[in-house]
Structures are given as C-alpha cells and as structure tokens.
C-alpha cells in the first residue's frame, strides 16, 4: 500500500509541473479564444534567455529580471506585428499565426543563443525526501509550491484588479468589451506578457530537470491532455487537470504498463483526455459554449 500511495503522491506532484505549462495556454485562450501553439517556444525562449544571461556571469536575480523584461518586450512585439494586423480575423487564422510564430521563436532562440544543451541549476536539490515511509521529491515539492503561488497571484490579478475585470470582460464578450471602451490591444499585450512570464517559470523548472535545450518546447505535449481535462478557460482547471494527469499516468505506468508492454505514460494521458471529452466536452472547469442556432 505504501508503494501505491508513493506512486499517487509522486504523480500528483509531477502533475503540478504539467499545470504550470497549461496555465500559459489558458491565459491566452481566455483573452482571445486562441490556442497559442507558440507557448512551448515561448517557454524555451524564456529559459534559454535566462540561462544564456546567467552563463555570462549575470547574477541570478538580475538575469531573472532581464528575462522578464525580454518576455514583456516579446509580448509587445507579438501583439504589434502578429496579432494587431490579424484582429477580427477568424480564430483558425490566429491559430495558424501562432503556429508560424512558434517556428520563428524556436529558430530565433537557437540562432541567437546557440543550440547547445545548457545545464540549469536553481539551487533546489533533486534528492529523495522521506515523509514517514513515503519517498517524495524535494524538487517536485518546490515546483508544486511555485505552481500554488502562481495560481494565487493570477487569481488575485484576475479577480481583484481592473486589468483582471477588463480581461474577463474581453473573454466573455469581445464586442461588448470594446463597446464600453476596453482597449483590446492593451489586454492582449498584458496577457501575452503574463503568459511569457508563466512560460519563464515553467521553463526554469522544466529546464532544471532536463536541461535547457530545444526539446524543452516539447513539454507542451504534456499540457494538452491537462487542458482538455481541466478546461481551456480555467486556471484552477489547469491545476486540477495537471494533478489528474500526473497521478493517472504514474499509476497507469506502474500498474497497467507491465501488462501491455510499458511505456504508456504519454498516450495514457490522452486516453484519459478522450474519456473526459465524451463526458464533459468543455472539461471539468471550462465554460460551456451556448450558441443560438
């Protein structure tokens, strides 16, 4: 039984890392209804910028600050050069734009900062930690705490500030929001900037685990089932979705995997997501679209 609970808890903690990636998607989807295919590339770009600065002797805190500034600058550029010219276009057009954007960001990141694999040490020991008989990961506990803090900050931002109210208004009804004077471009700039910073947090934690390299952009594959389960419009849903995916795939790998050849972690998460699609197409916490036909 100890092994079961250890697997379950380990999976839940690993799931918070998936949630961190998924939150970036949720932010942009909430504001514009666009699935941002470039989120993985933004995550890679943020981590690569940080580690490049740090490798050149820039102190940790300053490198972090400079990276945040770069991500905000990037968000402003994306809004100005990609989104604004495409305003009022269909969602599929915007999606295709983010698809192109992801390749541009990945290419720029490798072109400007090199393609070599970089180590990233955040000073968090990734060693076993025993809680009674249960062995947990110290790193995963820190990641879970980071995710918790991030969700709290974002919840405050969206619920307690004028920016948050404006953003929710744009998410609910863009035309109505525009009619009462909400500046759509400004909202997009803010949301992309926040998504960039969230990408930085996720990129640092994933980068510390696997190294900062091109494949960092692939961690978004872990976020898709999380979004389907939690819903594309809920930050809390992204958290819960991450926990469900993390726990389920770990338990499945250990208990079902050996029966069918193993290596089932990635696709089992999608099986789970498909099951949720049948039962709750909008996800656990997503907004159900009601359209008059």
């Amino acid at each position, binding site marked *: 039984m100890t092994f079961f609970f250890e697997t379950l808890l380990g999976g839940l903690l690993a799931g918070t890392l998936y949630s961190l990636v998924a939150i970036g998607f949720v932010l942009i989807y909430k504001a514009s209804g666009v699935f941002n295919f470039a989120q993985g590339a933004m995550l890679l770009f943020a981590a690569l910028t940080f580690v490049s600065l740090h490798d050149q002797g820039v102190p940790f805190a300053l490198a972090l600050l400079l990276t945040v500034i770069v991500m905000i600058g990037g968000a402003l550029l994306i809004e100005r*050069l990609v989104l604004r010219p495409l305003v009022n276009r269909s969602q599929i057009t915007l999606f295709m734009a983010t698809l192109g954007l992801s390749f541009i960001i990945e290419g720029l990141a490798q072109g400007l900062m090199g*393609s070599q694999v*970089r180590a990233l040490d955040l000073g968090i020991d990734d060693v076993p930690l025993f809680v009674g008989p249960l062995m947990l990961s110290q790193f995963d506990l820190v990641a879970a705490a980071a995710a918790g803090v991030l969700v709290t900050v974002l919840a405050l931002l969206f619920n307690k500030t004028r920016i948050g109210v404006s953003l929710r208004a744009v998410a609910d009804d863009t035309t109505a929001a525009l009619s009462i004077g909400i500046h759509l471009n400004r909202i997009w700039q803010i949301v992309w900037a926040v998504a960039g910073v969230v990408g930085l947090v996720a990129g640092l934690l994933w980068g510390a685990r696997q190294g900062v390299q091109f494949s960092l952009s692939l961690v978004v594959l872990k976020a898709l089932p999380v979004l389907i389960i939690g819903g594309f419009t809920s930050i809390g849903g992204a958290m819960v979705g991450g926990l469900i995916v993390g726990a389920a795939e770990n338990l499945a790998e250990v208990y079902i995997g050996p029966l069918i050849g193993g290596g089932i972690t990635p696709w089992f998460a999608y099986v789970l997501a498909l099951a949720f699609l049948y039962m709750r197409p909008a996800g656990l916490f997503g907004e159900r679209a009601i359209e008059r036909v």
Partner: protein
Amino acid sequence: MRASFKQSLAGAALAVAAFTTSVPPAVASPDQQFIPLATYRVGAYASSGVQVWAGMIDYLRYINEVEGGINGVKLVWQECETEWTAEKGIECYERFKNGLDGAPVAVYQPNGAPAAYALSERAEVDKIPLITLGYGRTEATDGTVFPYNFPVMLTFYSEASSLVNYIAEREGGFDKLKGKKIATVYHDSAYGRETLGPLKLLAEKYGFENIQIPVADPGNEQSAQWRQVRQANPDWVFLRTWGVSTPVAVKTAARFGFPVDHIIGDIWASSSEDVLPAGAAAKGYLALTPYPAGADFEIHKRLKQYVLDKGHSDLKDLKNFGSVYYNSGLVNAAVAVEAIRTAQAKFGKRPLNGEEGRWGLEHLNIDDARLKDMGYLGLMQNLKLSCRDHEGGGSARVQQWDGANWTLISDWIAADRALLRPLIDEKSAAFAKEKGLTPRACTGDE
C-alpha cells in the same frame, strides 16, 4: 512611415536569413571524390550535430590539406540539412546519390536512424553503400542479404554483449552474474527495443535476471519508471535512452537513490550533452562508447597543428574539441576515407562509385598498425569487414563522467559476436523471405 518600417523590417529579416543560412557552394569536378554530408545543424538534435560535422569536416580538410587527398584524389563535400528526419534524409540522398558536378559518391552516411531505415532498400537498388555507425538495422550485419548496408563497428546487439561482459569483469567473472539483476531502461522505439532479443539470450546464458523498463518518447518525466527500478532493486542499470531522456533518467535515478556509478549508458547516452544537464547527479555515471572522448589522441595533435591552429576548423566552440560527438565525426570520416583508400588499391587512384565503395568497405582491414599511422590508436577499434560481416568490430570502451570530463576506465571490451550471430541470421533470413530476396553467396571474389 508605416510602410517603410515594414519594408526595413522585412529587409533586415531577409538579410539575417541570408547571412545565417548561406553556406559557400562546394565547387566539384570529376577528378574529385564527393563526400555527401547529410547533416542536422538545426532542430532538436542540433547540439550534437554541429560537433559531429565539425569532426568530419576537420578530418576531411586534414586529408586534403595535409595528405593531399586520398592518394592524390582530393575530397569535396557538401552539406544537406535533414533535421534528423526521414523525409528530409531521403531528399538529401536523392540530391546527392548521383554525385556533384561529376564527382562520384563512393559511400553514403545517412546520419540518423529514421533516414537509415528509410534508405536501406533504396540504397540496395542504387548500389550506394550506406555506412551506419552505431545505428541502423542490426540484421544488416549479414552482408549476404544486405550488400549495401554497413552497420559498422558496433551494432546494438554487440553493445548489449559488451555491457554484460563489462559487468562480468566488474563482478569478478561470468559465474558471478548468476542471480544478479540487470535492468534496462530503454527508449520505447525501434532503437530502444533492439536489445530485447540479445539481452534475453545473454540472461539465459549467464543466469542474470533481465528486467526491461520502457520509457516513451520524449522521456521528460520518468518518475514511474524509476519507481519500478527502485522496487526491482537491480544491481546494474543499462540506460538505453536518447536526447532529453538521458539527463532526466540520471536525475530521476538520483532522486530515487539509485547509485549513478551503477548506471551504464549506451552509445547514444554517452556524450557530455547527455550528462551536463543532470549536474552533480551525473558524477560517476558510466557509458559505453565506440568513440571515446578526449583530445590527447595522436590525430588530435595533428588536427590542432594543421587545422585548428590555422583557424580552419569547422568547430565554432573550441572547447568541444575532443568531445564524444566531435570524435564520432572523426571516426565516421575515417571509416569513409579508409574504405575509399582500400578500394583505390583495387580500382586505381581515382574517384570511385558506389559499387567500388562497397568493395572497399567489404575489404576494409584497419589493424593497430594502420590505426597508429592514422593517429587513431585508442580512439578507434580494429575493424575488419567482409562480404558476410558488415559490422567488423563489435567492441566498446567504458568511460566515466567526473562532473566535468569523461575518463576512460576500460580498454576495448569485445562482444561475444559468435553467440549473437544466429539471432542476426534469423532476422536477416526473415527479411530476405519477406522481400523475396536470394542471399548472395560469399565466395571471396566479390
């Protein structure tokens, strides 16, 4: 104003694109030997690729500039970007297979498992020998069924056998393997699954418990797998991962308390790029390799004198001189050059075509004396190929990561190739049957 801003931006983008993608075109002529380079300098595997091509190009440049070519025949090379994908690998092959401006192709290196599999049968039709060092079809060792495929030096079967032989050495003999547990954590792909058969056979022979734990691509979360390892409590772990799944495995192993000095990485988990991201957790990690790291081999002294110090190296970051990947480029280039040199002994000192290149490969015999002449003693193993045997070597050395560098801790460890050969013959016979091929007879006159 707005239009001019956009125009200048577009102009700048075009200038940057032109600057970053421009590669001087190779000028070739029929009196030169063409060496096609199917590269991957961009994409997920670029960090290793840039070092591999630097090693290859530096050696080819050394052959041209210091030795005056191969017996006076100058080499000319051109790159084609594959991004390590099968489709682009095929495109590059199709572009290169007929040579360059009359300079023919004698051997072709697909440089990537997907392209190697995709080109395997095409190359047989085109009569272009494929050299797949450390990857590709293991059953292509059987040259009677695969005349134009050469998985030279170390197939995954031999790698598994070398591993078991090394563990036996560490444990104090083969008799000590009985009752031991060896877990293989492997990339769940054709590459990763390749050692399932040989390890089963070796476990039956030596009596160790063979535990297999797959990791699905990309392998950036492995808690479940290493929890299984911890539960199984093996004596050794054979790590057959690739790319990001290697540092994640090493870090996760540390998190689960498994001793890193009892993890032995395979050929594709043996570079600095595999361990650097794992930081301190990788200190003590072991890895098998057919091209060990190090810049103290004789060839490195020559390259430093004639290529690097003259500013002619393709290496952008000179700290990678002597890295595993750079050295893999050196070894790959040397196999191609020596095959051509061998073939020239029969066909004359002139540029050669694919059929002649195959003859050169099948008569390749690189012994210690030749390795010493080449400056490769210690860096490369003896290699003797034949019509029936397209692998030739079957040995690996073990290196250990000290946190900053690799240190060689073993001599060449030979695989038990005689034990494994029936498995290879079985697979190649099945392939021949499926494709309706009649294996050629190896009479010695090929």
